[in-house]
């Protein structure tokens, strides 16, 4: 029996195409935008272009803010399906970066008081943006293959630490200020031209493992890193996230296609719900590979080795 609902919060940055194709229900979060106040999060560039949005954000960082869906909003979203007796798997943005999971948990508890038979499973993706989105897509693909509610939940819990990020975040001021980077204090200041290379850590945040000077050096390190960590690339759909680095993402996409021949590579936007916290400088590929070590020691050694080789 696999007639269940797959839900994710706005942190998953999935394009309309994916949401539709895989029937994924999205729970909007909140954005505070200059001059507009509190508005629901959105996942397409309608009233503003990507470039204008990030240029404004860079200029007036403190005028932008985000908040996850609150308990009442989660309750409403769950109730709509619980009433019809549909089981729900709800995947949330990393609990290290947002209170989304907390609110979903409270909402679930309240729903269970009212509907004791409701079946709602919450999964902390420990990821954000398109990395989180890729995990949601994997869950949806398993559902299409006929896997059951339990099987999909088990897959997510057992495999979430195999979702990798290979990319750079070349403007760390956003994550540092918002506390969404491990050891943020050490990263204040501007980093023109330097490409900090980050991977997801076991705490559900990003740790910078090394830095490359310039994009060319960074691409070389990243491709080696993917090669060392990916599994069965030819069977995979790879996501590339870019907040405001589209030209670089296109270059990266071509390189990945040429080297790994995956089923497909999609360039995904990072929309304001994540973008406000990440800033304009994210450019990274997401794929499934070997489990990430708890202390990142394996991954750190690889990055250090590849950076040294490039010198």
């Amino acid at each position, binding site marked *: 029996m696999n007639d269940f609902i797959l839900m994710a919060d706005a942190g998953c940055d999935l394009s309309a195409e994916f949401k539709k194709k895989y029937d994924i229900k999205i729970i909007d979060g909140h954005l505070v935008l200059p001059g507009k106040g509190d508005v629901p999060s959105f996942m397409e560039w309608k009233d503003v272009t990507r470039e204008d949005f990030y240029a404004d954000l860079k200029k007036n960082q403190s005028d932008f803010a985000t*908040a996850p869906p*609150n308990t009442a909003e989660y309750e409403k979203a769950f109730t709509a399906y619980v009433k019809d007796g549909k089981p729900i798997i709800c995947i949330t943005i990393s609990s290290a970066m947002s209170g989304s999971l907390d609110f979903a948990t409270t909402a679930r508890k309240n729903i269970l008081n009212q509907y004791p038979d409701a079946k709602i499973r919450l999964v902390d993706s420990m990821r954000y943006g398109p990395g989180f989105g890729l995990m949601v897509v994997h869950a949806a693909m398993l559902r299409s293959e006929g896997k059951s509610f339990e099987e999909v939940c088990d897959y997510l819990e057992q495999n979430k630490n195999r979702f990798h990020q290979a990319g750079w975040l070349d403007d760390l001021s956003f994550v540092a200020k918002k506390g969404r980077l491990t050891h943020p204090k050490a990263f204040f200041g501007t980093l023109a*031209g330097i490409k900090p290379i980050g991977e997801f850590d076991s705490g559900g945040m990003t740790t910078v493992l*090394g830095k490359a000077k310039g994009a060319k050096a960074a691409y070389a390190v990243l491709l080696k890193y993917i090669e060392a960590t990916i599994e069965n690339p030819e069977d995979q759909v790879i996501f590339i996230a870019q907040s405001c680095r589209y030209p670089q993402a296109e270059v990266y996409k071509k390189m990945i296609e040429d080297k790994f021949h995956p089923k497909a590579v999609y360039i995904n936007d990072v929309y304001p719900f994540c973008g406000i916290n990440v800033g304009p400088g994210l450019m990274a590929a997401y794929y499934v590979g070997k489990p990430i070590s708890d202390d990142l020691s394996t991954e750190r050694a690889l990055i250090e080795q590849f950076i040294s080789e490039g010198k």
Partner: protein
Amino acid sequence: MRRINGIHLEKMMNNGLAYLQQHEEEVNRLNVFPVPDGDTGTNMALTLGNGIRYAKSDEHAGAYLRSLSDGMLLGARGNSGVILSQFYRGLADELVRTPIIGPGELRAGLIRGYRTAYEAVVHPVEGTILSVAREGIEHIRTQITRNSSIESILSMYIAEMRKTLSYTPEMLSVLKEAGVVDSGAYGFILIIEGMLKCLYGEVIDPVEVPAPKTQQPLVDLSLFNETSEFSDGYCTEFILQRLTNSRYKQEFDKQSFISELRFFGNSIAVVVNGMRVKVHIHTLYPAKVIAFAQQYGEFLTFKMENMQVQHNEHDLEIAKKKEHKALAVIAVVNGEGMKKLFEDFGCDIVIDGGTTMNTSSAEFLEAFEELDADEIVILPNNPNIILAAHQAVELSKRRHITVIESGSVAQGYFAMAMDVPDSDDAPFRVSQMMSGIENIATVSQTVASRDYSYHQISCRKGDEIALLDGEIVSVGSDYAKTILDAIAAIEDIDEKETCVIFRGTGVDEDRGEELCESLSARYPLMDFECINGGQEIYHWIIGLA
């Protein structure tokens, strides 16, 4: 007052919101480190505001609270907002059948409030709003009697919460690192304070007001004592209301007012808004400043601080740097702006080399003494200091000190930017920093201070000149052109991806943008960053990687 009904409560809540809004920015600014949402003050105000809009006026206190808490639950924004709404939910749950709240009911409500808030969080974190709300009531619950007034209960509650607030940095290390108290906890206390103020008749208009400055940390007065020598003066700030009464001078000219003030001190800032004049000055003789200003009107506000106490606090901060580190960095720079920049980068000690950049080995040795680190890296940032740095290393007989031979602040910048503070592998970090200075071309631009002629280059005093890695390569009357020519002279300019521009003192931001624009027109694929370096002598220092 021993009992309050729903109408009282409504007024109190309105006042709580207004008081929080008054301090909203202040609360937001406390919100620097790992919290899942950026703007605590805004989130809390939005949450409470929604509750108040939603709530229905009702004499029955419980009924009012129920509708208030429903509105808050619906409008909750962010972590702090949700916790706040859960607190009021608990309060409402407890008091829903209570038409008039007395001391016992209030106590029970405050207890139920914090317990509900705890339950709402999957992993409660101490050092937050939860801790203040819990300790606030738990520490006073036995003191509340049938005869306690609502005012006295809230006063005690606030006093206890303030105590806990001051401990939040001890409970939550991220707060301590950032040097702040918990923003959510502070916001919560402000709401309760606003409620209490209402009972005392102090009604706050719910209008936008200019955000007050962040609360200054408590000053340790023992830092200035009978043996101190007074040299730094007072930081003096006031708002003067000019008066039309003929006893006061009526003719007022901002420029001459500033010129007069210059007799009494420095760091002068004067802002005129109609008949109000805001003044900031550092002075050894505040009495003279007061007498001078009072010719024009009277003071609306007045603040004066002994800067020596501040200065001594700064010394204490330096002393604190002795904490153990795996790797510490010492950099030499020129100018306050540059000093701040390198401190922001995470340099542990930044030595001001002065305009001529002639730091001695002894200064390095002193710096080594101030540090407790397994590895030390020195960034001399000037060819003239590299030797002194090496010598200091030799003299100190300490191992694990590396001089990274950065010949310019641009190279030092790239060295710092390449550091990976997350790594435990110190040799890797040093090698990363060393790779930072490789293949960096530095262009410096200034005005010739005398006539000069060497090889094929000659210039007159006052000409614009640009140097590439220490050699004059272009001369002219237009500074921007000399810079463009110098950059064009870089051998592998086609390989360069990044250009960092440091503006010197007196070069304004617009000129920085202009230069960036003309450079990016010439090199469209390059990334540009313009930073206020504040260095002296060189108007521009430009690093290309």
